[in-house]
């Protein structure tokens, strides 16, 4: 009997924290989303409205861009992260420690600083353009094509935003995949070889399917912050690549002040993300350790 009571007691601070700072804000977002901007309070006369959702239609391009860029960034993270994680997990312990430090090192630096340094690299007078100028690349291109190119426009493109997201979130893709591959039972690989699988088949039929849970949790950890990012799209997108995060920020802190609309947008985004995660986890069902958010 004693033991049964102990656990909830320990859980009280956490449950309290979650209730106060996770459940309550979500409830408030839901309330606000259905509240009329003029009335200002859901339960006052004419307080309930669906207009916030109706107005969202005009923001469809922002929704589309957000999900497009987040999906591309997630895919790129899988394509880069998987091989890195795979080879890291197969190297010696010393190498693994080193690689881990190198992967984590950028994370120790402030997020804004990291992103600003990309601006310094990609800017029209940034590192890359200066380098190309110095080696005479622009003169060469202009000479061949008869153009008048002075610099590469990199900031303010969707590619720059994707780059910013990949750079910031790649470790969240590498680490879960790495830990799954590291834990793979070596005898399974031997069994596959023993049954006649060459190294390609061993990878395709055993290693890859068994590392799916790692990929799924990596995808979740990259996709969710990517789709709702605002700082990266503002800094790397140069104001031309507005994403959902920017839109929501604008409703709460910016000139377009309308927390009711902002809440509605946030709610819709959350619902879409949850649906995405659910579908993905169903896809990976049967694998152990399926991850939900």
């Amino acid at each position: 009997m004693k033991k049964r009571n102990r656990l909830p007691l320990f859980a009280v601070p956490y449950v309290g924290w979650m209730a106060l700072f996770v459940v309550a804000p979500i409830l408030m977002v839901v309330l606000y989303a259905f509240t009329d901007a003029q009335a200002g309070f859901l339960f006052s006369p004419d307080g309930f409205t669906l207009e916030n959702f109706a107005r969202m239609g005009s923001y469809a391009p922002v929704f589309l861009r957000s999900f497009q860029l987040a999906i591309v960034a997630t895919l790129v993270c899988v394509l880069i992260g998987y091989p890195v994680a795979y080879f890291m997990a197969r190297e010696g312990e010393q190498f693994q420690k080193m690689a881990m430090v190198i992967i984590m090192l950028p994370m120790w630096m402030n997020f804004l600083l990291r992103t600003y340094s990309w601006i310094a690299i990609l800017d029209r007078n940034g590192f890359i353009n200066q380098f190309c100028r110095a080696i005479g690349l622009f003169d060469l291109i202009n000479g061949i094509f008869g153009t008048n190119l002075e610099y590469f426009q990199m900031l303010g493109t969707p590619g720059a935003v994707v780059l910013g997201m990949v750079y910031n979130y790649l470790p969240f893709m590498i680490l879960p995949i790495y830990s799954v591959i590291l834990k793979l039972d070596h005898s399974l690989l031997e069994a596959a070889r023993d049954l006649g699988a060459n190294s390609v088949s061993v990878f395709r039929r055993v290693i890859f399917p068994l590392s799916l849970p790692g990929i799924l949790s990596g995808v979740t950890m990259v996709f969710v912050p990517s789709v709702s990012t605002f700082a990266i799209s503002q800094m790397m997108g140069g104001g031309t690549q507005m994403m959902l995060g920017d839109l929501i920020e604008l409703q709460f802190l910016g000139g377009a002040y309308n927390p009711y609309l902002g809440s509605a947008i946030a709610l819709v985004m959350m619902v879409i993300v949850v649906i995405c995660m659910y579908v993905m986890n169903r896809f990976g069902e049967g694998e152990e350790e399926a991850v939900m958010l």
Partner: protein
Amino acid sequence: MAKELIRLSNCCMSFDDNVVLDNINLYINDQEFLTLLGPSGCGKTTTLRIIGGFQTPTSGEVLFDGEKINDVPPHKRAVNTVFQRYALFPHLNVYENIAFGLRLPKTDPETKKKVKLSEAEIKARVTEMLTAVNLTGFEKRSVTSLSGGQQQRVAIARALVNRPKVLLLDEPLGALDLRLRKDMQNELKRIQKAMGITFIYVTHDQEEALAMSDTVVVMDGGKIQQIGTPEDIYNEPKNAFVADFIGESNIIDGYMRGDGVVEIFNRRFACLDKGFAVNEPVDVVIRPEDVDIVPEAEGQLTGTVTSVTFKGVHYDIIVDFYGFKWLIQTTDLSPVGSRIGIKIDPDGIHVMKKSHYSGMFGDYSSYSEEYEEISDANYDPTEEDEGDSNEET
């Protein structure tokens, strides 16, 4: 006449400075059930892994059907393995686990083309294997939901469905409980006979080895100590290690006083062993069940019973002969402290050459001390684990 299938000649294996296998010479016949038996670290698993292709010997040759296969990778060998912990693929169900090897494209030895089995053929072979291991109806089950014994049988089916010439089994019954083990021993023997496949079996369990094998290879310290039939190994052990490892043995220092005469404790005994030099020092093995207890006056040797343990079918009694303690198995109770005499028939005595194992085994002094300690009235068992003694209250 049995045909030779695999031969290891002068195989050595070392990791850094650590010698794991020291000059192994061994041949395995077609359709033989051969067991590599020894304590952990004796090199038996390494030997198996060399045959499976997971390790390449540092020196020496591995021949399969007369061809050197040292550098042939595992997936190109006509050998399949049942792994110690089964190593079933957790992401595949029972059917797909067994079909794993069949789904891989194989190179036809004549046309050099990749061939794939049809789905119908795969189904027929998997179903046949499921029947053979008594798992019909388990096709769709997840392997993680199976009991140890069932997983074991899936692992065997997965290996055998590829119709290997040789099946390697690495302590396959180690994780099963005693009852299931006995059943699986019979099952394995039956499968081996029915399919006519060579089995190479690794175990540290001597009983298992004796019960199942055609040939037993006893290993220790990276060396083969003895190769023979289970009867040979038990009745004619080559040295003190084998005598001690296979069953229980009293091993006593003795001298040969001519063909068929051995002297222990200054008394001469008739034996069947010949061919030793006169007065050669030897190790004498006397199995606990080969000793007859007789009244003290009629005994060839006399001693004092120092402990008795009831074992069901018989008693294990420890008898002190002139300071050297023997284990004797008897169905007649001789109480502790009584004086008894013993008689040993000539065929109950086995004489071995001295080896570097001499003097290390076959004395039951420490064994009896344990019992004495417990039967001592002053012995307090709570003394050693005082901290936990109040747990029940």
